[in-house]
């Protein structure tokens, strides 16, 4: 019961803060709401039995991705460009219609589908994850390292061109 309570409260916090980020005026406020949403997501990961990815969610998303975004916000300092809030014109209503149709589909799907009750939550610790990661999925880890190296080279190259011009 306690698990359910924490789960629903955390889900509500995550959804509300993501929704607030959608309607935020300043990018910095949007970033703050995004941080709240991601920390709530870390709690959800923990509740779903993944302490390792919960820690990684905090250190990677909140620690690295959000710092990158905030860094870029300070670089792109531009006082209040037009159209911060989604305006109610033709370009607003068509995507909104598509989103509402998607929302109705999701509601219909979950209202009519069968409810699957799991026995209980089992904590899957870092050891099990690491054994799979460096045993069965070793090749993909290497491929990811290659991808990160490619991203590093691309970023360095692009930012060097900025300095020259």
């Amino acid at each position: 019961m306690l698990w359910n309570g924490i789960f629903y409260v955390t889900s509500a916090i995550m959804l509300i803060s993501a929704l607030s980020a959608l309607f935020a005026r300043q990018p910095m406020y949007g970033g703050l709401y995004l941080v709240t949403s991601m920390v709530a997501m870390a709690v959800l990961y923990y509740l779903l039995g993944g302490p390792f990815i919960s820690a990684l969610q905090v250190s990677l998303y909140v620690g690295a991705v959000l710092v990158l975004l905030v860094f870029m916000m300070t670089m792109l300092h531009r006082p209040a460009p037009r159209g911060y809030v989604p305006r109610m014109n033709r370009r607003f209503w068509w995507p909104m219609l598509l989103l509402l149709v998607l929302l109705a589909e999701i509601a219909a799907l979950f209202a009519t589908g069968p409810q699957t009750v799991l026995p209980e939550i089992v904590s899957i610790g870092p050891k099990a994850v690491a054994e799979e990661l460096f045993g069965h999925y070793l090749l993909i880890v290497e491929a990811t390292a290659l991808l990160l190296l490619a991203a590093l080279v691309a970023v360095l190259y692009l930012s060097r061109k900025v300095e020259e011009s």
Partner: protein
Amino acid sequence: MVYEPTLMTAALLFLIGLAMVLLRREVLFVLMGIEVMFNAAGLTAAAAGQYWQDSVGQILVLFLMTITGAELAVALVLVYLAFRRLKVTELAEIHSLQDAPLLGGEPGP
């Protein structure tokens, strides 16, 4: 534990991220929307890992985080380049590749 509320939360979060991509015009908010959508996908993967009580879901989340980091770094440098060269922060204003006379009409909103 009931499995559906987790999936429903992930679906709603994905929808919010999609709304951020579709409705906002600033590049930074579009990138944030993509992050939110990645988060929703990760939540689905973690829930699926718990469904089968296996560590593969967590491994998928791990790769998802890594790839998100790489994607965001490159995307942010491109945003910065667009700001430096074109002095724009909105998506609709980046239209220097557009063939204006053929399309006709005004290029952006």
